[in-house]
């Protein structure tokens, strides 16, 4: 079991924002969907650092991304 980030897409889509995407340390991991204007996480690449949560919740007060527990194979 380990943590990965998960975007609440309905909430995120309200903002037309991609700030968390610009601060993830991992390449090709926290992505942005051009048409739907939402961030999304490529789970197998996420290392669970929660920097994206700091950006969305602490800096922007938007609370659209959280850490969730996954099991190997999920």
């Amino acid at each position, binding site marked *: 079991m380990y943590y990965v980030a998960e975007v609440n897409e309905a909430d995120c889509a309200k903002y037309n924002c*991609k700030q968390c*995407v*610009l*601060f*993830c*340390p*991992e*390449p*090709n991991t*926290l*992505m*942005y969907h*051009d048409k739907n204007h939402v*961030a999304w996480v490529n789970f197998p*690449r996420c*290392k*669970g*650092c*929660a*920097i994206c*949560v*700091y*950006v969305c919740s*602490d800096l922007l007060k938007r609370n659209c991304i959280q850490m969730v527990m996954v099991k190997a194979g999920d």
Partner: protein
Amino acid sequence: MGLEYVRISPGFEKYMPKDYVDLVQYGQFGKEVDVQQLGQFKELVEEHPMCAGCFMAYFIRVFYAALPKPEDTIVIGTAGCARLALSQAAVPFIYGNYGDTNAVASGLKRALNIRFPNKEKDVVVMAGDGGLIDIGFGMTMHSWFRRENFTTIMVDNEVYGNTGGQESGMSPKGVQLKMAPKGKQFEKINAVELAKTAGCVYVAKISPTNPKRIAKTVRRAVLAAREFGPTFIHAYTSCNIEYSIPTEKVLEDARKREKQDFGFYEWMTDEVKEFFEQLERAPQEVKA
């Protein structure tokens, strides 16, 4: 190296790994990307084993997106954490012996000038504080004294991170580390002033709190090195492991250090300033 080299030979697309096909189709080869587009194109750097939340890894991610011509660039690294990611990018990477990066880069850049006299080939050294300012100090300085045309980027985590926490000349005075239990006895070395004195034509100090600014700084350093002489970026890239920073607070720490002692600083010679004034003004003139 060059665009022809990265392209897939017709008919071979279906045999190439998907990540490579994506890189050629949706990546940054042959075009300059805006760093604000991160997350919307296939990045040059692939999965790598640097620690979760490592801001050195973050800086490297933005660095690759900022390269003006990745298909014509060679990156030189060495022992230390950065090479764990540098070696996983679709840009030629040379592993210089620890301490030797700037001597290797000097020879390489000169050889590229002879081999490709009419093409721009960029050379960038990226190495740690230990690699560049302690053990590689002599090579770093001499590449600057000799005015070699390449960029040096010091990813300063203020410790020997890769070998478990010895102090470096860049550790702040007084700091206690796993293998420096008495506390650092002397001041952090002023690398930026050394670079100016030793002959760099463009020097910057930066904390990675603003991707646009990182990208602009990297781009300027690479372009100025092509035209005028050695360039240097001193980047604060914290080690959350050796400095026990909870990963979710790594950006907060970078912002704190920016206010404290890593405020953005940029210096360049008058001719480099004039060069950028012209270069960066040009696109607006076209629009008007």
